[in-house]
């Protein structure tokens, strides 16, 4: 009996010790790019999980029990915002019933709040398609946006876990300097891409196009979120004869059919680019994502 008690004591002490050593901030993100960023800024002080992967359309998710459980345990919920997740995030927050991560709490952060979004509609009109009222939410595709979010995230982590404020600051400066170096490299490499005429499937690429100063000459969808109609496709074909694009871009979660159709008829190569971390094998982290974007786009100019 005495031996058993001793064992209990040892086990419970061990459990306490391990909890102390691993008291991490649970960061739950809607998209994988923010999980990757939280890993950079939080290091081993945070545990990250993402609701979606780089291969899926963030507009929809399938409800799994673990998803609710993770949001329930989360100390920080980090999402793109600007309406991108409006189809499922509010109901997920409600079901998780975790006061730490409700809108307005310190544990809730929308990346889009810290940036000026592109494509802000001058008027909201349902006839213009799937337009987001606050602007285009695919902000992660401009690498100059990333440091802004990184700084805001570090501040937020310092509020939530003030005991480690210095460590977050350290991680942040380290990340920012590595990012600055990489950004210089990408901009140097991408110089030949300036003015490259492109056709995109869905208008998810505005930030990349804006950053690299590509020339958007056409969109496969007539309006965001709508399937191509025959009139639109024939106009697009006509336009390609007048003003040929160099490449047709689609994201991993869009079917290849539409872009291959256009590629077959025009001879313009169609490529699939990752929209976020995990979108293909090369995009293992934020650095890998932009390395791959620049590399793949350069490959079609040669």
């Amino acid at each position: 009996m005495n031996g058993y008690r001793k064992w209990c004591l040892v086990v419970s002490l061990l459990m306490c010790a391990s909890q102390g050593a691993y008291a991490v901030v649970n960061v739950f993100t809607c998209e994988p790019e923010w999980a990757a960023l939280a890993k950079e800024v939080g290091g081993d002080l945070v545990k990250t999980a993402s609701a979606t992967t780089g291969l899926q359309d963030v507009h929809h998710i399938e409800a799994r029990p673990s998803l609710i459980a993770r949001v329930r345990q989360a100390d920080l919920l980090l999402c793109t915002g600007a309406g991108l997740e409006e189809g499922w995030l509010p109901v997920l927050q409600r079901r998780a019933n975790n006061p730490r991560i409700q809108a307005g709490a310190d544990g809730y952060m929308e990346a889009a709040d810290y940036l000026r979004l592109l494509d802000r509609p001058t008027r909201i009109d349902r006839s213009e398609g799937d337009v987001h009222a606050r602007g285009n939410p695919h902000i992660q595709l401009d690498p100059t946006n990333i440091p802004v979010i990184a700084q805001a995230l570090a501040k937020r982590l310092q509020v939530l876990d003030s005991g480690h404020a210095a460590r977050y600051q350290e991680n942040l400066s380290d990340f920012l300097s590595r990012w600055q170096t990489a950004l210089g490299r990408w901009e140097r490499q991408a110089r030949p891409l300036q003015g490259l005429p492109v056709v995109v499937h869905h208008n998810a690429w505005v930030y990349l196009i804006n950053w690299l100063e590509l020339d958007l000459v056409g969109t496969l969808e007539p309006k965001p979120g709508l399937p191509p109609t025959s009139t639109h496709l024939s106009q697009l074909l006509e336009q390609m004869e007048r003003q040929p694009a160099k490449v047709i871009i689609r994201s991993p979660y869009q079917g290849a059919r539409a872009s291959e159709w256009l590629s077959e008829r025009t001879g313009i190569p169609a490529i699939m680019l990752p929209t976020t971390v995990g979108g293909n094998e090369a995009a293992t982290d934020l650095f890998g994502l932009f390395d791959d974007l620049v590399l793949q786009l350069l490959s079609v100019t040669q």
Partner: protein
Amino acid sequence: MNIEGLDSSILGPAFAAGLLVLSTHVPLGRQVLQRGIIFIDLAIAQFAGLGVIAAHVMHLDSPGFAVQLMAYGCAVLGAFLLYWCERHWPDAQEAIIGTSFIVAACSGILLLSSSPQAGEHLKELLVGQILWVGYAQLVPVTVIYALVLLLGKFLRSHEHPLLFYLLFAVTVTASVQLVGVYLVFASLIIPALSVRNAGKRGVLLAYGLGAAGYGLGLLGSALFDLPAGAVIVLSLACLGMLVAAIRKVACQVAG
């Protein structure tokens, strides 16, 4: 395996929603099988969806009462239409139901071509996900179901086709928003199918099978971290086959 999803506050409301859906779908499913019109739930759900789309095209945006009214209204109109068809061409009813399903679906696509945002709302409405259900949402559905069950019982809906169609339309419009069209179909058909020809006792067996299917499905989805609706459908189907097989063997032994 993963145990973090095994939380009664996560699985509890979903299980309650499942039991609630079964309460009406088991008896209605038996009638659907008898009448040989198993795809009627898909057609009714599509009519309700058409109502939602119409509400958006008419700019009745505010989610809630007006949209719900349009959904129920269109489902009931569809029910009248299908009842009328049954009276005139009873031998072609299954084909008419199938055709009205695709006609309603395509009308929806055409209406949506000018307003894709309504498509999102339609998906939210028709692709209800059982894990998103909270106890508060179960209250109005419980009231609707109680009325349906009482009316069905006292007015003998199995003897009055029009009443059956109307009650069915109201029930499915409520349940499809709660658990989605796959689970509605599964709850309607699988328990009723596996206890076919089982007489009075069959209803109890069907309820038990349905409850076990939802329970095991939810546990499986938590343990293996899979989408809940799909796991429940498969678990209902497996249990249904098991029950049907046991009944067949038992009949042969007895006979």
